[in-house]
Structures are given as C-alpha cells and as structure tokens.
C-alpha cells in the first residue's frame, strides 16, 4: 500500500525521454468538506496531509516506457515538426496526431504532411502574388489619381489566360490530392481484415466500458477507461453507445469513430511501438465531455497475455481486517447499486467494473491519475471533481471511507 502511494514518481532515468515526464504535475484543489474527508483518509494511513490542501500528483502512472519511445520519430518527421516551432515547445506526446505510433496514424500523418507541403506552397504563391499586386500598384500610384480607367484589351487577354491556367491547375491539384486521400483511406481500411483481437467499447456519460471478447465465454472480461493491446497486433474495436453520441479517438493510433446509440460502429487500431497513449471523447456529450478520457497501453505480447490473465481472475480477497471491513461497507452501501466486483455479490453494471480498479492508470475516465489519495477525494465528493458525473456522494463516515479505500486499493 505504502509502496503504491510512493510509486507514481517516474524514474529519473526515464525522465528525459518519457513523454509523461513532460506532463509535469497537476494540482488538484480540493474543496474544504471533501478535503477534510480526504485528510482523514490520508492521515489514517499515517501520512501527513499537505498543508495547502492541495495534492500534488504526477499525471502519469507508474507504467514504464520502452526506451526510445520519444526518440523513435523519423528524421523527416522531426524536420517537419521544426516547421511549426510552436508545436515543438509542446509535448509531442501521448495524445497527438503528429506523433503516430500505429500504422493508420502514421499513414494519416504522412498524408497530412503531404497536404501541408502542397497547400503551403499554394498559399505562399497567393501571398507572393498579393504582395506583387500591391507593390506594382505602389509604383503605379504615382500615376495621376484620375477616375477609374478602362482596362486594356491585351491585359485582359493575358489575365484571362492566367485565369484559365489557374482554374485548371486548381482542379488538377485537388484531383491529385483526392487520389492520395483515397489511396490512404483504402490502405487504412485494409488493415481491418487482419484483426486478431476484438474489444467492445461502450461509451457512457462520461466513461468507457471496455469488454475483451473471447470465443470462450468465460475468457471474456470487462474493465473500464483503459485498453491494453499487444504491440503489432491489429485490434478490432466494436463501438456502441447506450446514451448519447460519443467519439472514440486515440490520436497516436488512429482517427476517430463515433459511438452512436442504436448503431454499431467498428474501427481497427494497432500500435507499432510500446507505450502509453491517451484517448479522449471527441464528440460533445454533455456536462463532462471534457473529462472522458481513456488510457491505451501497448505492451509486448507476453506482458499483454499476463495482464489478460490477471484481469480474468476475480477480485482478490481482502487481506487484512481493514480491507475486510471495507468490503463489508462496500457490499452494504450504495456502491453495489452501480458497480461490479467479480467474485463478490456486487454485480451491477451501471458504473465501471471495479474488479481490478487499483491496477488502472487513472480514475474517473482519466480525470485523475490513480492513487489512493485521489481515490479518497473521488469517493468523498465526486461532484466537486467531476460536476454532473453520474457518481453520487455516498454517505460514509471517515472511518468507513478509510476502510473502503483500503479494500478498493487492494483490487489490483
């Protein structure tokens, strides 16, 4: 437990290239009432609660990043990035369409750079023409400021020829670009035939339910707000919604696809390199559209298989009295109205499955990084952290909260 709390600082060695390190630290300001509860919870652990009532938390979880994740960018891409110096100051990290880590996002980024190059050249041409038009006229301004003049025939003819060339050129360029766009689209779609794994993602206001399907029914399992996938394996993602329209978007891997109630959509994602990526809902879906993120972790096949096995297991039994008390509180309070913890009587499917909640990188759909302190704050007053969230305030005493925390934090 203590180790867990201490864990979230990234290793110094990884700091240089870990894109997460650049994330810096997010400050979570807690309102007084909730802070009080959180403090009680925290101090129950024998920790000193920070005086300014602010929890200083790194945004990134403890997941190690493979070496060279940030350095793997091709030189041409780096050169291209230099074109937009403002972007360089930004974190080229875990939620960027310009930092592709998958086949599709790579093709799309390539297409985008191609479009940028062609269109930037056209733009430069227009600007140059505009400048010359103004410059020329400066010279001509010295002409007596008479009334408007009648254009000369030869000039008109020359300009008309220019117009024809311009129109033909525009048509040729957009036709070519359309061709490239179509080719990339076909290529991206072709990947779908090679999908080896199927995940069903159901969007809900404001979190993601993730179901790993398997032909063997008892090898299917459910998690929330995180997707893990083996590197290099195309994964079919079946997209559904039970309330409003959302959009599934992990920019480092692929463009977005909407999740629409009454329809079933599909997309395929593949990660070509290990790493942690962030996805976010991209269709306005109400109050907490801003806090509907998910973590995507690409890991080597063996690690993925191991994770999968661990997820298939029911929740670990509470190991100490505190946790046992917490389980009792959990199973007799409002918590069970919404949540499932496999292996217990809690089996409601309104909210996220909590069977392995403590093994997830974040809480409340990417709103907070997972830590016991954040979990305390979240349970104590979800409406302050994520106003409008479907998670209600459950009336727990400080002691009960403490126990529930101990229990949930054990659900690795």
């Amino acid at each position, binding site marked *: 437990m203590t180790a867990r709390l201490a864990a979230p600082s990234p290793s110094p060695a990884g700091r240089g290239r870990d894109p997460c390190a650049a994330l810096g*630290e*997010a400050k979570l300001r807690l309102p007084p009432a909730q802070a009080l509860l959180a403090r009680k919870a925290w101090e129950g652990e024998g920790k000193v609660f920070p005086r300014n009532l602010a929890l200083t938390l790194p945004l990134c979880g403890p997941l190690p990043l493979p070496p060279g994740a940030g350095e793997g960018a091709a030189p041409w891409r780096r050169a291209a990035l230099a074109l937009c110096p*403002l972007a360089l*100051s*930004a*974190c*080229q990290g875990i939620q960027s*369409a*310009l*930092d592709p880590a998958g086949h599709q996002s790579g093709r*799309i980024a390539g*297409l*985008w750079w191609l*479009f*940028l190059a062609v*269109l930037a050249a056209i733009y430069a041409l*227009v600007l140059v*023409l*505009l400048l010359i038009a103004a410059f*020329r*006229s400066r010279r001509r301004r010295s*002409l007596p*400021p008479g009334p*408007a*003049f*009648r*254009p000369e025939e030869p000039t008109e003819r020359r*300009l008309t020829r220019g*117009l024809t060339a*311009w129109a033909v050129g525009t*048509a040729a360029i957009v*036709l070519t*670009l*359309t061709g490239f*766009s179509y080719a*990339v*689209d076909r290529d*991206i779609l072709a990947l779908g035939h090679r999908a080896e794994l199927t995940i069903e993602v159901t969007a809900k*206001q404001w979190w993601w339910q993730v179901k790993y399907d398997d032909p063997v029914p008892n090898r299917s399992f459910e998690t929330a707000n995180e997707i893990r996938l083996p590197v290099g394996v195309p994964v079919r993602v079946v997209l559904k919604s039970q*309330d*409003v*329209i959302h*959009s599934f*978007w992990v*920019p480092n891997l*692929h*463009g*977005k*696809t*909407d999740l*629409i*109630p*009454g*329809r079933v959509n599909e997309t395929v994602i593949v990660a070509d390199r290990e790493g942690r990526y962030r996805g*976010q809902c*991209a269709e*306005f879906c109400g109050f907490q*559209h*801003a*806090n509907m993120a998910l973590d995507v972790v690409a890991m080597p096949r063996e690690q993925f298989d191991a994770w999968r096995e661990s997820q298939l297991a029911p929740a670990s039994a509470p190991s100490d009295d505190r946790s046992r008390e917490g389980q009792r509180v959990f199973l007799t309070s409002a918590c069970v109205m919404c949540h499932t913890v496999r292996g217990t009587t809690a089996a409601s499917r309104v909210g996220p499955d909590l069977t392995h909640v403590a093994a997830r990188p974040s809480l409340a759909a990417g709103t907070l990084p997972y830590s016991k302190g954040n979990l305390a704050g979240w349970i104590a007053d979800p409406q302050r952290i994520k106003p409008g969230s479907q998670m209600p305030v459950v009336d727990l005493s400080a002691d009960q909260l403490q126990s529930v925390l101990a229990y949930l934090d054990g659900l690795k």
Partner: protein
Amino acid sequence: MSPRDASPFIRRDGPALEEVETYARLERTWATPPGLWGWLSSVDHKQVGRRYIVTAFVFFLLAGLLALAMRMQLAGPEQTLLTPDRYNQIFTMHGTTMMFLFAVPVMEAFAIYLVPLMVGTRAIAFPRLNAFSYWVYLAGGVMLWVAFILNVGPDVGWFSYVPLAGPQFSPGKRTDFWAQMITFTEVAALAVAVEIIVTVFKQRAPGMSLNRIPLFVWGQLVTSFMVVFAMPAVMVSSSMLIMDRLIGTHFFNPAEGGDALLWQHLFWFFGHPEVYIIFLPATGFVSSILPTFARRPIFGYTALVLALVATGFLGFGLWVHHMFVTGLPHLGNSFYTAASMAIAVPSGIQIFCWLATLWDGRPRFATPLLFVIGFIVIFVLGGLSGIMLASVPIDSQVHDTYFVVAHFHYVLIGGAVFPLFGAVYYWFPKFTGRMLSERAGAWNFGLFFVGFNLAFFPMHILGLIGMPRRVYSYPAGLGWDDLNLLATAGATILAAGVLVFLGNVWHSLKYGLVADDNPWGAATLEWATTSPPPSFNFVHIPVVTGSNPLWEEPDGLPVVGGLRVDQRELLLTSVVDAEPEVREPSPEPSIWPLLSATAVTILFIGSIFTPWAVVWGSIPLAVGLIGWFWPKSAPDTPEPVID
C-alpha cells in the same frame, strides 16, 4: 390604363414637374410618419435594414463577450472560472448567436439596405413582409438571450445533436428555446430571401440586364436561393426535435424506429450551405470594394458570376463531410471528399479574379481595401485547411478538434467578418452621410488582423496535438497550455480592435467628415443618390447602360419618368433584359407587421410550454394577417397641388 390614372390631377415625375417639387412630393409620399407609431410601422427598407444591422452587431458584441469568457477559462489548464454547466451554455450561445443572430442576419441586413439601391428601385419587394421579418428576428434573438440570462440557455451546442438534445438527456426547456429560436430566425431569413429574389428579378432599373447586375447583387441572389433550399431543412429538423421533446414523437429515438443520424443529415443539409449563405454575400462586399479602390472594373465578371452559381450548387453536395466519422460507408464518403475539394475550383477562380483586379489596378489603400487584403490573406488559409478537412483520413484525426475551430474561424471571420468590416467602412457614408475615420480604421484593421491570427493560428496546432473542441477545461501537461494562453492573448487584441471600431463609429456619427453622394468614386447605383438616400431612394428611376453605370456615364445617368409621385409606385421590369413592364403600387407603412410578429412570437414561445399554443395562438395570428392584407378603405385620391 384605368380612368382614374388618366386624371389630369395625377402627378408623375417627368420634365413637366420641377425637380424641387418632385422631390417634395416624393418625400411626402414616401416618408415614414414621425413619432413612435411611425417608427413601429415603418416599412422603409433602409430603416429596417439599419435596424437589422444594428441589432446584428449587438448580438455580435454579446457573442464576442462569450468568446472572451471562454478564452479566459481556457487561458490555462484546469481553470475554474466557469462551471461546466455555464461553459456549455456559453459555447452553445456563442455559436448559436454568431451563426443565427449575427452572421446570416447581418448579411441579409446589408442586402435589405443595399439591393434596392443597387438595382435602382424605390423600395424592396414586399416591404411589410420585410418589417415583419425584422420583428420576428428580434423576438427570436431576445427570447434566446433572456432565456440564457435566466439560466435556461441552450447547452448542447449550436448543432444540438440528438439524442443529447432529445427529451431524455436534455430535460427542461433549454433546448426548446434553441429550437424555437431556429424557427424565428428561419422564418425571418426565408422572408428576406423571397424579398431579395423578387426585388432582383422584377425591380431592376431599365437596362440592367442580367449581365449588368452588380456582383454584390448576384451574390445576394444566389444566397437567397440557397436560403430557400437550405433553411427548410433546419426548420423541419428543429420542428421534429421540438415534437420529440414536447409531444412524444420518435423521429430521433432509436428505440422506436427513429435514428440519431437523421438529425445530422438534415442539420448539415442546412448547415453546410449555411457557410456559403454567410460567405457569398461577403464575396459581394469584396467584389464591390475592390474595383472602387483598384479604380478599374472587376476582372472576370462572368467568371465570378459562374463561380457564385457553381458554389451555390456545390454547397448542397457536401454536407456529409461533417459526418465522416459517424461510420457511414467509405465509398460514399470518398464522393463527398471529391465534391468538397471541387469547391476549391470556384473559390480559386474568385481569388484569382480579385488578385488580378488589384494587380492591374491603381489601388488606393483606404480602410475598406485593407480589410479586403486581410480577407485574402486569412480566407485563403482557411480555404486550404478546408481542403485538408475534405480528406476522409485527415478529417478522422482533426474532426471535432481545435483544428476545425481554427479552420472555420479563418473561413468565417476571414471570409465574412473582414469583408463585413470593410463593407461598413465602405458604405458608412452612404448609410449615415458621414465618413468613418481612416486613421482609426487603420488601427481597427491592424489590431483585428494581428489579434485574429494570434488567437486562431495556434488552434490549428492545438487540434493536431490532440485538443478536442467543446471542452470546458483540459489537464496540464499535454502541451496545450502555452498555445492556449497565446490564443487568449490574441483574443484580447481582437477585442481591442472591436473597441476601436465602436469608438470610431460613435465618434464619426457625430464628428465624421460629411460625405458627398459618391465619396469613393464608385460605379454602382447606390452612389447615384444622396448620402444618406431619401426615403424614395431616387428622384427619378435611373437607366443603366453598362456594368459600371456611374463610370460609364460621368455626366449623370439618363432616367425615366412617368411614375406617380403622389402614391408609392415602383417600376417593374422584365426578368432577363429589364425592360419596363408595370408600374406597381408599393405598400404604405403599417402597424400590422408588428402586430402579426407579436402574434407569431406568442404562438412560438407559447408552444414551448404547451402544444395547444399552436391552436389558440393561430387565432391572433390570423387576425394579424387579415389586418395586414386587408386593403386600406380610404380611396386613392389625386394629390392636390402644392402651393
């Protein structure tokens, strides 16, 4: 010819009547009665147009304040200036107000004011309908803003996607106010579209054949046709939405055979043409301003007209590119990619013609021309990023991100607001009789240009590095902080530009240089009359002999006589060649348009609360309309001779 017309007491304009007396009689016939009653019953297209312009700018300022509030919230990560509830209302109100209460109405407003002047007629077609449309527009806008102030402002985006906007996920009245605002503003816009079409078709000055119509008027004509075919879509869809919400229909309810994407198809069938409904009038501004300041006729008149018409048609074939990520079949999507890219051709032609006009001209860099140059710089960039968005794969990444926010602000502010400000500087002397300050104008332009680019260019990058739209806050550390701060700084500079503009208008109204009839030396008919124009626009209806009448007839335009001066009378001409056909009476001022608009308002707002309002509300509406169309009982009498 009826016997009464042959009476020797009837007065007509012509050589037999002295100019001063003609003027005085026309003024008595056409002037709006004084006082509040007269103000409320005015049907003068210039007064109604001015009201439209002022009202639209008030909404522009209000929506701009909302934009600033959003930029303050997003200046840094995890800010808590606004609650998510407030923020969602604010971004919805910003988009809704800018699109429905500012951009479309302000373009209509310029059409209402300028089109009759530019085609050389005394009044707009259906002036009472025109007055009615203003009151309905005003009522819709006020209703929406009162709702917002009372915390029942809409909060599901200007596009109101179902099911989020449906009865299950948006209980309460917020979305109903949005849907009814749509009905209000679309009724107004459709009415104006019909007026403009008929004015252009039937009321052009003799000699103004189709190939001599000013490009601004062409732009407004194509726009009006687009309104006719596009706006019914949003009226149909918003009516379906409000019925789903209020009387339990199931158009968008997948559980009962409805479909969420039906809304998107209908909305974007309107929504994409909407962009061109805003943009085409702006191209009209550009095509008016450029020749005047380049001091040569526009290059490529025919090409520009064809480009306008082509854009009008293509504009209806692209709506699906707003739905590329909804999972529609990819082959179909590729068709829409091609269609969306195809629109680059007419746009490119327009840009070329404008550049060529400037190239071959002897430009005078007054403020209107500065705004036109700013327009080219900004709009072309927006158009090019639009080509990126037309590509299905690229769109799948940047759709619904800040890249799109950047794109459409480049297109709409660059493509429409810059020309609009140029237009205000250009026609202000005609509207008010005074010039705006050129020095303040240059400051206005500079702040606007710099502020705009600082505010919106970074958003391209923000979108590419993952920032989605419509988020009330974002976590620190994703690399979005600095760019957002920069955007906020740019927004404040932009706002300073708007302040300079307001100061300039306020100061110039009182102290500006007095403008003569044609201060810029322009070529079109609105400059052939006084600044500001008299209530009857022209003492005599001018005859047009070319595409640039005032340049081609430097000694004054020939005119036609024979219209009555003791009654409101218009000259109707044939559609293609503008041959004189009919002298048609034009309606007198009337309070009934206001009363009818009030009845409509009661019906629309009432129906938010009970569907029966449609039934009982139709009674006062019927009374209003009958009162409106019932002929005046006073028989027409020839006007006595003025002493």
